[in-house]
Structures are given as C-alpha cells and as structure tokens.
C-alpha cells in the first residue's frame, strides 16, 4: 500500500492567516483527494487534486478558500486561506491508484495521518 506523509502534523494559527498543507506519497498515484474532518464529525471531500490541471471542488468548497496544487503524481498541497475558527479541523490527504486496464475498478483508498489545524 502507498505510504502517505503530511506536513505539518498539527498547527495553531491566527485568524486571517493562511496555512499550506503538504501531502507526499512514496509512489505515483492516479488520484489524490483532500478531505476535512471537523471536530466530532465525519469526513467530507473538499476536492480532487488533478495532476496538471485545476482541482475539482465539491459543493460548498471554492478555490479561493482552498487552493490546491498537484505538480506531479506524488505530491499535492492544500492551502486553507484567510482562516477563521470554523476552519479548525483535521485535513486529510487520500490517494487511490487505479492502474490502467483495471476495468474501472476502484482500488483501496489510503489516507495520510492528517493535519490537525486549530484556528484561534
């Protein structure tokens, strides 16, 4: 299985500032995703990070607030912009590798250790 690392593991930030979270995978993967888990809640997909093109955002999430980059098949960043206390969450990177010819199969999805963000 893919090994995923995230930086930072946690941070405490001031209102109005921005934080960039990095996600590094030890192998090339087709799909990368960013999820948010608010305190005591389930996981919600923010966006799909597309290599070489703009990310695809889910309803309720916009690029100005959560800009995403994916320069290659092993790395992605998520920025949480102009933060407010409501942004306090765990942000998780997820990867899925569906090799060509898999017939549309969805492979296992693995998650990084998460970045625990607290906004004061």
């Amino acid at each position, binding site marked *: *299985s893919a090994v995923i690392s995230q930086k930072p593991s946690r941070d405490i930030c001031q209102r109005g500032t921005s934080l960039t979270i990095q996600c590094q995978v030890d192998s090339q993967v087709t*799909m990368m*995703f960013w*999820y948010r888990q608010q305190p005591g*809640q*389930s*996981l*919600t*997909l923010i966006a*799909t990070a597309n290599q070489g093109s703009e990310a695809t955002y*889910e309803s309720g999430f916009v690029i100005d607030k959560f800009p995403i980059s994916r320069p290659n098949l092993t790395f992605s960043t998520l920025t949480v912009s102009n933060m407010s206390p409501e942004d306090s969450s*765990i942000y*998780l990177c*997820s990867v*899925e590798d*569906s090799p060509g010819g898999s017939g*549309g*199969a*969805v*492979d*296992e*999805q*693995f*998650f990084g*250790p*998460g970045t*625990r963000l607290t906004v004061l």
Partner: protein
Amino acid sequence: AQKVTQAQTEISVVEKEDVTLDCVYETRDTTYYLFWYKQPPSGELVFLIRRNSFDEQNEISGRYSWNFQKSTSSFNFTITASQVVDSAVYFCALSASWLSSNTGKLIFGQGTTLQVKP
C-alpha cells in the same frame, strides 16, 4: 444521490463480547464500492476492507467479518471477541465506479464510536 447511514452513534461492550456495526447505503449506480475504516484515538484512518457491488460473498479476516446484502443495501461489520484495542470510531464509506462522475470519491457515514471495556 449517494448516502451512507450509520444509525448507531455509540456502542459500548465488555471485552470478549461480539459486536455488529450497521451500515446502510443508497446509490443509483449499479457498480459501486463499499469500505470500512477504523479511526483510533490517535486520529489516523486505517483501511479495513473494500467490497465491490458484484461480490456479495461474506468476508472474514481474523476476528473481523463483513456481511454484504444488496437486497437490504447493507454492509455490516462484526467484531468477534472484542478487545480493548478495538475501541475506535468506525466509518463505512461508499464510492462509485469510473462509470460515474463520482469515481473515487468516498461518501462517509457519520461513524460509530465503539468502546470496549475491560
């Protein structure tokens, strides 16, 4: 629309008891995938199982077993002889195949917190 419901918010059992976590899903896709994840207190999400919609065979892995029934749109998870280390939040999730625009995206249930007491 796709939806996953885990009606049990919290379950508390005594060690060595068997426990079943329920998961009911909704989807209009004919091909889809179901997952279970474990989130221990440390916070990381641990992959447990993936099952595709064409495979209704039950699966057993050690003390874990899964019962997939398309007729009731359920994918329940049973832990046999529970242990304190099983204490965690368990999430059931749903994903459509590449035939759908939702490919690869996981829709999570609200999670079930399992507490196993010694």
